[in-house]
């Protein structure tokens, strides 16, 4: 029942925004809210001048920062600053639930490996931040704008630096392909629906709050299965580009596949991701003979930072 209602609201909001022949009522409503939903595509470049544009430089603009962000999300062109503000909120909330492992050596090491892998991507200049969080869960997380977290439980299963590079590469894949933002592009209809119900979107913080939801709940939402497969493909390639053993990631997946699905440490991972063996199979399918001539990468077992 709730689901049906939810789907209906979503569909209504979607048609209001996306249809070539939008529902007049909603259009009017958006105008009333000065949300500028019906702005033609050529207005899109706004997002290249984010919140700094609010002073007198654009006197005609009646948009508030929240409108700009909403607009950017709708056009699929969120600026790095906006992406970062969304990611900061998610990462900060996430660290409210689970703390960083109090080991500076470990955190520094993970940032070095992660930054090196991220530099092999098309978004090397994001302010990448990597952290190992104090949980026995076996999982890893990403947030928009360059935040990547690995749990201690997963870290302990890794055998070498290449394994770590593969795992971080998968999360970097989510960030550079903007998988979470794409989900938000859909979920912002929820914010709009909330607005329809009388909650006005007053400022950007509130909008981000609406988008992100409660706490770090967004971290427990599933991404599209295809997004996970894509992140695996990207992770493998980025690790290989960085000079690491490209096959470390599938080997890690194989290992995680051996953990019983009754084990609470993998409950969230298994709930939000395709089965590890399916991910392994997908990589096998994607790779085929494409990497036959790839030089053997490094594992760096010796340098791997081992937890006490």
């Amino acid at each position, binding site marked *: 029942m709730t689901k049906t209602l939810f789907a209906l609201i979503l569909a209504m909001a979607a048609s209001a925004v996306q249809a070539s022949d939008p529902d007049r009522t909603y259009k009017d409503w958006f105008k009333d809210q000065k949300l500028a939903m019906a702005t033609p595509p050529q207005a899109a470049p706004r997002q290249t001048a984010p919140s700094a544009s609010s002073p007198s430089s654009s006197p005609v603009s009646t948009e508030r920062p929240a409108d700009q962000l909403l607009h950017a999300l709708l056009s699929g062109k969120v600026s790095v600053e906006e992406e970062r503000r969304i990611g*900061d909120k998610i*990462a*900060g909330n*996430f*660290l*409210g*639930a*689970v*703390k960083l492992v109090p080991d500076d050596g470990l955190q*520094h090491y993970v*940032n070095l*490996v992660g*930054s090196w892998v991220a530099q092999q991507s098309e978004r090397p200049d994001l*302010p*990448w*931040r990597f*952290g190992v969080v104090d*949980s*026995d*869960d076996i*999982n890893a997380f990403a947030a928009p704008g360059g*935040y990547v977290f690995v749990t201690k439980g997963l870290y302990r299963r890794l055998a070498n630096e290449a394994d770590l590079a593969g795992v971080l590469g998968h999360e970097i894949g989510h960030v550079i392909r903007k998988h979470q933002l794409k989900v938000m592009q859909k979920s912002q209809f929820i914010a709009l629906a909330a607005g329809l119900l009388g909650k006005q979107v007053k400022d950007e913080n509130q909008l981000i709050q609406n988008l992100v*939801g*409660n*706490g*770090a*709940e967004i971290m*427990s939402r599933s991404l599209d299965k*295809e997004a996970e497969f894509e992140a695996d*493909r990207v992770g*493998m*390639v980025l690790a*290989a*580009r960085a*000079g690491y*053993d490209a096959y470390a990631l*599938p080997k890690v997946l*194989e*290992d995680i596949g*051996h953990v*019983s699905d009754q084990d*609470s*440490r993998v*409950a*969230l991972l298994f709930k939000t991701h395709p089965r590890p*063996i*399916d991910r*392994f*199979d*997908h*990589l*096998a*399918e994607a*790779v085929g*003979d494409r*990497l*036959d001539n*790839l030089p*053997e990468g490094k594992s760096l077992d010796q*340098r791997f930072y081992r937890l006490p």
Partner: protein
Amino acid sequence: MMFKRVFPLLLAACLAMPAWATEGLMLRDDSLRASASASAKSVGVAAKGSKVDLLARQGGWTQIRAAGKTGWVRLLSVRGRAPTGSNNALAGAAELTQQRDPNKVVATAGLRGLNEEELRKAQYDSREMQRLEAQAVTGEAARRFAAEGNLVAAKLDYLPAPKPKEAATTPTGGFEF
């Protein structure tokens, strides 16, 4: 009752293979090659769905024994059953036993996993964010770190998504992976 379930498994595992080998399952047909290279001479074929013994690994290649023949197949053509070095059959059975042991269940439940409730209730932690910021490294530091490990950046295209013929189900060959 528990014994009844585990015993046949154990027996089957013991009969199937020597205790020291790691068992694997072929995910697709692949040539068995004389050495770990695509250009190496083919010495046979390992068929999809067949159980093989995993002997060694080199780069993207795994050495297997299949139907009495030894050779190398692509690493992603075969999936291992348990980590190398452990007596997988017995370890697997032990794991099964432990899961059904009430004491073990209590111990597992005692571990605090990340759950949705906890994540939903989480409040922004600016101190932890400052700690995270403090560990950030520059691109230059990362490049130096890579050079110290003799890591050399290589060119490699992204892998395109495979064509959606994935409906083909994974063979499980009578035992769970």
